[in-house]
């Protein structure tokens, strides 16, 4: 894992006096900092006091078995819904409870595990929507300005041959590419990718990993979620493993695969 990012188990953490025992992060510990995120749905605690930080230009793996709270954490971070407790810092600013679209405008994009294409329009039109400015009066799309850019992004993710097709004609791997293209089109600094490798063939995984690495080299930070470690461990610089909404391990891919807690909670059952 060649990177310029720290690969130590612990990112610099200021221990919070009121919360001794659990680690805590300040706003400047990374480009994205989650501090004590808790999400409750009624009596169910989906995410329990989860803290982590993401360094700039890092590819962070976010691993956990199904139902571990990965997507809930994503939703709390991106503002799809607010966390019950805890703080999210993005670029040093407290952004807890911001609306989802505001987070996207601030440079945080995400893909969805259950794909959310606009079924009524072609692949390139799906990407183009991410290029439309959030203004009521704008004609950039009409005049073809955003069009060329949308085509370029489609070609970049490997959808160049499928510009005109409707989303329901796409095979699974291309749906993942479309999700990624739509997120990339918002020009994000931080991209949260949900289950990119699920159901992909090995060559698709390699191709997608190469694309993510290229984007990282150009300045994008990634958090990649997967419940399956296949393909993921080769891509990521560092991983966080959660189970039952709690962080159980944090470290390089080697460290987490050797971690007894991870093996117990995860690998034993999954592999």
């Amino acid at each position, binding site marked *: 894992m060649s990177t310029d990012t720290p690969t130590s188990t612990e990112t610099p953490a200021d221990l919070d006096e009121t919360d001794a025992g659990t680690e805590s992060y300040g706003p400047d510990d990374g480009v994205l900092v989650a501090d004590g995120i808790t999400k409750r749905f009624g009596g169910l605690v989906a995410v329990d006091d989860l803290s982590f930080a993401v360094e700039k230009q890092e590819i962070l793996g976010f691993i956990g078995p199904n139902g571990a709270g990965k997507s809930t954490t994503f939703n709390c971070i991106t503002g*799809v819904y607010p966390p019950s407790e805890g703080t999210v810092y993005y670029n040093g600013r407290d952004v807890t409870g911001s*609306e*989802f*679209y*505001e987070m*996207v*405008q601030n440079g945080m*994009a*995400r893909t*969805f595990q259950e794909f*959310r*294409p*606009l*079924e*009524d*329009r*072609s692949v390139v*039109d799906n990407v*183009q*929507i*991410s290029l*439309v*400015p*959030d*203004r*009521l*009066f*704008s*004609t*950039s*799309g*009409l*005049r*073809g*300005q955003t*069009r*060329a850019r949308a*085509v370029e992004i489609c070609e970049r993710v490997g959808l160049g041959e499928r510009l*005109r097709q*409707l989303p329901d004609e796409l095979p699974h791997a291309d749906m993942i590419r479309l999700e990624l293209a*739509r*997120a990339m*089109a*918002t020009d994000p600094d931080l991209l949260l990718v949900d289950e990119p490798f699920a159901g992909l063939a090995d060559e698709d995984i390699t191709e997608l990993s190469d694309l993510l690495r290229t984007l990282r080299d150009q300045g994008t930070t990634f958090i990649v979620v997967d419940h399956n470690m296949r393909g993921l461990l080769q891509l990521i610089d560092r991983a966080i493993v959660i189970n039952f909404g709690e962080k159980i391990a944090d470290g390089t891919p080697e460290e987490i695969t050797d971690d007894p807690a991870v093996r117990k909670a995860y690998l034993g059952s999954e592999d």
Partner: protein
Amino acid sequence: MGGETSEAPTADEEFEERTLTDILDPRGFGWLTRLGLFGLLLLAVLPALQGYGFLGIVVNSTLLANITGAMFFAVFAMSWDMQSGYTGEISFGHGLFFGVGGYASAILQAQMGLDLLVTIPLGMFAAGIAGLLIGFPSLRLQGPYFSLITLVTPIIIIGLFRFAPDVTGGATGLFTETLTTGAVEGYVVALALFLGALVLFLAITRSDAGIVLTAIREDELAVEAAGLNPAKFKLFSFVLSGLVGGLAGALFVHTYAGGFVAPSDLLALVVSIEVIIASIIGGIGTITGAAIGGLFLFLFRVYIAQVDLTVPVIGVPIGEIYFLLFTVVTLVVLFFIPEGVITRILVRTRQRAAAREEEDGGGGGGGPDLATDGGWTEGEPSNLERIVATFTEQLRAVLPGFGDDP
């Protein structure tokens, strides 16, 4: 009024930047657009053709008055389509806007003696404010709440009017001044409104806002994921729709309705429903479909009521059961052309253009605004089907026993 280019640009052309002048250059228009423009031209010169007749239709003041009413109704339908057809948030009570616009202007004139040139704009803004008051809280909610709120609001307003019959005229209505005298003047006012609304709505739905509004109809979360605020766009389309609907309502009262405003003309549930039917027949989410559907529906209703025939077996004159016939015809159209007449024509034309292009060795399909002008591919669900599917899904989510929530 096929207000869009029907030819599919080739792949190379399409990615070039176009200036607004390029887009508005009539030489680039397809035959559908030209046909639409010819229709508009015909509407514009019709008053000058008084006394002439062609194909058995004589241009007289009755015809002009009927078309005046039809143009008002078409504006009502377009204002519904601008909001409900594009965002998929179905308003079942658009009559509220027509009623608020018409009543606000009429009451201000009749009770306070203000000039019509003041009260008509005030009526328009009153409807816009009504849109803001209803839309701001209800459009933020996911689910069928918006539809339900729009359904009951006009009924509440009609109920409130009964409490102050001195001011509002109660259930019977209220007399006020007229803006125009004679059929031609009323026609000109309606034509100006019709053209203005058509151009405004087409400009907005064919710009980027149209892309966003149709995307909201499809998936709001996906719109948010693109960094766009769906609530802002939904409220914008609702308030804009209210402003135009309110202006149309106010002008309707002071011209076509002869200075008389009654709940049955504007506020009644049947008005709101007819507006929806007109848009569905023409094609939801197209604006042009609502315009043509509105014109057609109004004239059809007027002329079928005048048919002097008796239905053979049951011995009832057609004039008495015209509303039944009208709904039957509507159902027949819906059955055979569920996506709407204009949508069907557009799609057929596009397919032919695409086929021709393929023969020429060119690539590509429809233009970039395929979705925003009701573009639809054979075999895919139409706009109407999509909206209905979403709506039933939302209803299912709030009805106990059908819940798919965890």
